């Protein structure tokens, strides 16, 4: 609790004690409620004192705000309601209303403060200092003061303050704050590191490559800080609603105080104000729209904060709102559904073992720098040492010829096989085919393709389960390859062999075909698809860690490569939305109920204060649930 809150708590306790004494007097000496009794003055004095102790600041604020032209604020309303109660002789009601109101305000301020703090802590990736090494002396400075090219020392447990390259040491980096990934990433001299990660074990020295303002941390912080600027439609609606709600309730209260009394007075000749005035005062108590106004942005803020814990950066509450309605998902292929790196997917050996085929090919391909060659080498190294080669030569457009164990080995495409006189098998399968022949004898082929991410299929089927109507993939790749990916991961539609601008046209077509009132999401890796990211209702960039361009182009950024974060983001959006809706409906329903009961003369001001404060607190606690959306969690 802050000092201000503690002071308030003291005042409430003193006021409550005085109030209790006053109330007890009335119970112990029932006669004292009689106007003429001397005890009446003591009792009234106590209740008034408790009223003032609890509410003097509210009264002051109300007066001050009226002088400033702010009429319909909560202080004013509470003042009128409580003074009204005192005027019609309900001293205990007046004091109680004020005490409960203050209890509620205190509770609200503590709850909001706590939630705000916990969300803010979660998103705290800001490095506070940098240990910069200047002329051999290490000094602690503000990261903003470090220039590009300077050396920064990062001790275990410290956050990397700036993007850079490791020049000394090796360590595991905890990227959880950025990516939600808990496994540490190992880095060693020569590796690029990004700011915001925490150094876990060894001492690292890095050479700074970017000034603080361009660093990953600054980019992300900017994104998070601005995220609540683009407000959701629901949020704007509630703010507008709050503006008209209070005056309407106040006017209704005035009418309720005057009209029935006048009507009864005229018809029966009996003028009794207090009953209807009391009912009207109860109206005023619930006229504050606080529960709504607080809980809606708090829910969105919680949702955005909770998502950020998994490395999902959402640029604004409006995107959460859009994502919640998403039914059409358009995927880019490379780097999104697939890893964007090549890998051996099949070995088809003839006459030799599959291991031999792989190691022959790898041995030959060692001299090549092509990504396909690298993938074969990587795959073979996992199974063991590569055989020695001699006289290796690479012919562009054919492949590699070499000598392994004294036997002439050719590794390459079908043209190379023809050249060495081997008869190559053809395949209809997707991917790039690398054939192998030893001494002119065909030995089989290796199929190399862009590997599909392990969780693409499960992520997509999860989206389907959540009611996605259409999953589409756009790619510039061959049809065979595209179809194969589509079948493996479970897509509804594939558009292949698209030129870069064809992607946008395809997106437009899909756009016009989607059902109304739903939204379209485009998921890409942020490379070359900025127009598509911008065109979609929600553009999501994947694997954006370290890619400033992707962070800028997208509405939602998945910091790591994990596509299972996509359904998680959708789930967070839906959960947040349903919590917002629950809060709005719940708050309005309770307020409406209190208004109706008050108008009918059932219930009293205490009930109204309880209802009003209770709704706010429940709404705040409910909003906090937005923070906690786990993977595969049930709603």
């Amino acid at each position, binding site marked *: 609790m802050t000092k*201000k809150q503690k002071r308030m708590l003291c005042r409430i306790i003193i006021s409550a004690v005085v109030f209790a004494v006053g109330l007890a007097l009335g119970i112990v000496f029932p006669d004292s409620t009689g106007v003429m009794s001397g005890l009446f003055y003591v009792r009234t004095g106590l209740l008034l004192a408790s009223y003032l102790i609890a509410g003097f600041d509210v009264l002051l*604020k109300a007066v*001050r705000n009226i002088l*400033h*032209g*702010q009429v319909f*604020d*909560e202080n004013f309303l509470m003042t009128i309601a409580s003074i009204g109660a005192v005027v019609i002789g309900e001293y205990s009601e007046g004091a109680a209303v004020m005490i409960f109101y203050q209890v509620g305000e205190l509770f609200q*301020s503590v709850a*909001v403060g706590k939630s*705000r703090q916990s*969300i*803010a802590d979660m998103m705290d990736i800001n490095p506070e200092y940098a240990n910069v090494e200047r002329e051999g002396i290490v000094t602690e400075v503000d990261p903003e003061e470090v220039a590009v090219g300077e050396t920064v020392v990062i001790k275990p447990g410290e956050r990397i303050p700036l993007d850079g390259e490791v020049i000394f040491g090796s360590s595991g980096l905890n990227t959880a704050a950025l990516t939600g990934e808990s496994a540490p990433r190992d880095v060693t001299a020569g590796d690029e590191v990004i700011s915001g990660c925490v150094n876990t074990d060894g001492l690292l020295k890095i050479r700074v490559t970017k000034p603080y303002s361009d660093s990953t941390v600054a980019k992300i912080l900017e994104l998070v*800080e*601005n995220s*609540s*600027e683009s407000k959701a439609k629901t949020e704007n609606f509630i*703010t507008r609603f*709050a503006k008209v709600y209070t005056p309407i309730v106040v006017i209704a209260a005035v009418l309720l105080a005057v009209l029935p009394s006048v009507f009864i007075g005229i018809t029966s000749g009996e003028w009794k104000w207090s009953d209807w005035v009391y009912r009207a005062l109860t109206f005023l108590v619930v006229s*504050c*729209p*606080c529960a709504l*106004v*607080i809980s809606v*942005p*708090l829910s969105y*803020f919680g949702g955005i904060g909770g998502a950020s814990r998994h490395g999902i950066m959402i640029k604004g509450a409006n995107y959460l709102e859009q994502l919640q309605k998403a039914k059409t998902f358009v995927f880019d292929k490379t780097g999104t559904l697939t890893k964007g790196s090549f890998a051996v997917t099949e070995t088809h050996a003839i006459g030799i073992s599959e291991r031999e085929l792989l190691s022959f090919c790898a041995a030959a391909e060692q001299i090549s720098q092509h990504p396909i060659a690298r993938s074969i080498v990587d795959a073979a190294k996992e199974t063991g040492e590569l055989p020695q080669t001699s006289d290796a030569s690479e012919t562009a457009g054919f492949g590699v010829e070499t000598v392994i164990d004294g036997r002439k080995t050719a590794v390459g495409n079908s043209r190379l096989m023809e050249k060495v006189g081997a008869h190559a098998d053809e395949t209809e399968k997707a991917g790039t085919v690398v054939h192998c022949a030893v001494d002119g004898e065909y030995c089989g082929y290796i199929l190399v393709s862009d590997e599909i991410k392990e969780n693409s299929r499960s992520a997509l089927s999860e989206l389907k389960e959540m009611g996605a109507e259409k999953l589409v993939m756009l790619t510039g790749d061959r049809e065979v390859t595209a179809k194969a990916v589509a079948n493996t991961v479970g897509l509804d539609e594939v558009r292949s062999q698209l030129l870069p601008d064809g992607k946008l046209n395809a997106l437009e077509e899909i756009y016009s075909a989607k059902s109304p009132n739903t939204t379209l999401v485009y998921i890409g890796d942020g490379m070359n698809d900025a127009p598509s990211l911008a065109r979609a209702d929600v553009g999501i960039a994947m694997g954006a860690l370290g890619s400033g361009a992707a962070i800028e182009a997208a509405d939602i950024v998945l910091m790591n490569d994990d596509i299972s974060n996509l359904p998680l983001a959708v789930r967070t959006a839906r959960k947040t939305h349903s919590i917002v809706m629950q809060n709005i409906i719940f708050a309005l329903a309770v307020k409406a109920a209190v208004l109706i009961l008050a108008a009918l003369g059932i219930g009293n001001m205490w009930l109204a204060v309880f209802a009003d404060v209770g709704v706010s607190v429940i709404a705040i606690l409910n909003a906090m649930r937005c923070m906690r959306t786990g993977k595969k969690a049930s709603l």
Partner: protein
Amino acid sequence: MKKTFKLIDLDCANCAAKMEDAIKKIDGVKSASVNFMTQKMTLEADDDRFDSILKDAVKVCKKVEPDCEIVVK
């Protein structure tokens, strides 16, 4: 020019909305947002008049919520 300021003791969401409204009405303000959650105010206004606009903004905020303080760096 766009600048962000910290707000201290902004403890009512409705007031934040009112402050935002009031600041937006100041002449020369291009955009303004008062964020209850992050307790921050973002103000975008003409460069040459920024300081005087900021003063006005502080003034109108005081009117709406006298307890709330804008930290002007």
